């Protein structure tokens, strides 16, 4: 008893460790280098990095839902598709591309508020499949829009008059900026009061509710953030690929990608999805050409990790070595 009492008073609670401070500094340096990207990287490499930034956004958003909210959505492509669609519509209405992109993410985030109120009533796999139904329904409704011309799709014309080099650099910067913004939003959400609630829900929903955590409100925040983030990713994807084909934007393959990135990297860790996104990006670069076999590999990896390494790569490293690169939690330090 005395020991326990002693243990409770002697250590101090800290958030930043020397390790995480050093890491945060190196992140700042890395971001500074990345910000200069279009000046120092080749065109092809800058394009690949733009894709990577979009993957990081998707992985982080899916992780915010599944890793922290305990909500496995297999229909998150609904927001990717609607984000692209909103961008087509807004841009068609004469709003300049990048303001339209931000606006469409905000609009889809606002739409997610009533959608979330309904969907969050579902539990576990009911929520998962319910989201997929939502994605299918949104897909077919978007197909009805004469501007989209069904599965034929349409193109984003806003970039037509820009020289390719300028468009490429602009896409790169806006992707980088949105990635930093959205990761930052997750980081500060997790560090604040919401973060404590959300991580309590992740660990045990019933227990969290019993100590006064507003479970629904916390999940609602994650749902809206993930929706807006995925809509932004959909808009960015459209800005880089130009053509909007509904079946590509509302496709279930997005869920397979997001699940792979978040699960393999480490569900419920801040760093994990970033690692997962980089890994996915490399796998796609190396094996993407092998098509179907590559997708089987993704499925097998999801299966193996969920059964044998559910904490993912980063979760396992964190647990085994006690590393904490970005301080989203608290830890006890002996003096």
């Amino acid at each position, binding site marked *: 008893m005395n020991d326990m009492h002693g243990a409770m008073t002697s250590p101090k609670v800290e958030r930043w460790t020397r390790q995480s401070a050093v890491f945060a500094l190196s992140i700042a340096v890395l971001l500074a280098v990345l910000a200069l990207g279009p000046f120092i990287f080749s065109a092809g490499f800058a394009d690949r990095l733009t894709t990577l930034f979009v993957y990081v956004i998707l992985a982080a958003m899916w992780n915010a839902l*599944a890793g922290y909210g*305990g909500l*496995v959505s*297999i229909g998150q492509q609904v927001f990717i598709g609607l984000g692209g669609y909103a961008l087509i519509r807004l841009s068609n209405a004469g709003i300049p591309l990048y303001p339209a992109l931000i606006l469409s993410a905000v609009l889809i985030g606002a739409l997610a508020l009533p959608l979330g109120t*309904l969907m969050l*009533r*579902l*539990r*576990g*796999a*009911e929520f*998962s*499949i*319910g989201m*997929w*139904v*939502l994605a*299918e*329904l949104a897909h*077919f*409704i978007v*197909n*009805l829009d004469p501007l989209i011309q069904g599965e034929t799709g349409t193109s984003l014309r806003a970039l037509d008059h820009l020289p390719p080099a300028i468009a490429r650099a602009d896409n790169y910067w806006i992707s980088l900026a949105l990635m930093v913004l959205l990761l930052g939003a997750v980081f500060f959400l997790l560090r604040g009061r919401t973060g404590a609630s959300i991580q309590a829900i992740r660990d045990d929903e019933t227990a969290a509710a019993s100590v006064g955590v507003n479970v629904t409100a916390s999940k609602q925040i994650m749902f809206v953030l993930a929706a807006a983030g995925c809509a932004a990713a959909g808009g960015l994807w459209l800005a880089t690929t130009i053509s909007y084909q509904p079946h590509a934007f509302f496709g*279930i393959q997005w*869920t*397979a990608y997001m*699940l792979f990135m978040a*699960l393999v990297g480490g*569900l419920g860790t801040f760093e994990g999805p970033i690692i997962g996104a980089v890994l996915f990006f490399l796998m796609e670069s190396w094996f993407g050409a092998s098509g*179907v*076999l590559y*997708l*089987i590999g*993704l*499925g*097998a*990896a*999801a*299966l*193996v990790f*969920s*059964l044998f390494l*559910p904490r993912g790569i980063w979760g396992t490293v964190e647990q085994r070595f006690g590393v904490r690169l970005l301080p989203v939690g608290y830890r006890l330090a002996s003096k």
Partner: protein
Amino acid sequence: MNFLNQLLQGALLGGFYALLACGLSFLFGVMRVINLAHGSLAVLAAYWLMTFCNMSGLSPFLGLALMLPAMALVGWGLQVAVLNRSLKAGPLIPILSTFGVAIILDNGMFETYGANSAALGPFIGDLAYGSWSLTDTIYVGQLDALIFVAAVIVLGGLTLMLRYTPLGRTIRATADDPAVVELIGVNPHRIYAVAVAIAMVLVGLAGAALGLRGSFDPYAGGPLLIFAFETVVIGGVGSLWGTLIGGIVLGVSQNIGAEISPHGFLIAGHAVFLAILIVRTYSWGGLRFPLRRAAA
């Protein structure tokens, strides 16, 4: 008259959906797991039947004698290799792992059988297109009627089995409380394995119906999972018979939707599903999800 015909065809389609949904509903009732590979496994069963017919030249109905036991084995393997481990690992893991299985199956079938759609219709002769005419404009397809009757028999048989047989009682007891049945000498993992095997036989029957009534392709599993899920949710009653009602409501809404617009088939089905979800959620002060009590 045409509207009446759509109603009838929709109700018959509902029989197929009920057959498709009962495996999903049963497995959830016993193990509290929603198998996201459900639709993909039905497609796999349909491909196995097609392989049997192609190689032997015999009727797909004879092929059931091989395919259904094979599906039971698949179920046993699924339980031992995936579900058993997933169940212990928390609520997220079964969703993630069965989704992984679905990705592997879908793309594996694409790799094995190619992108072209397949059908079992050519192997059953007249039955594929035979019909009885009720009036000048209303016809009942013989195959549709057969599938509807099969669904009723399967649902009835499952209900009787759960209610009156020793195995049924053990399954219900295990579903209620696996820890307690262990105290009276039942191994819940064995009961789970039996339940998954039964569920996969049901999936096998649904796969046969899928292949007989039209064409299918390697990626047909996703939509099938969605239809099965919608059927169970719309059914909304605590018994397996709710599944039949759910299937009929879904089938009828789809057919009426198709009547309104060429894209209406799927939109109407999904919209009715969401509308029922909203009504349940807000009128009863909380969603009482039918799957939670499906086997009780």
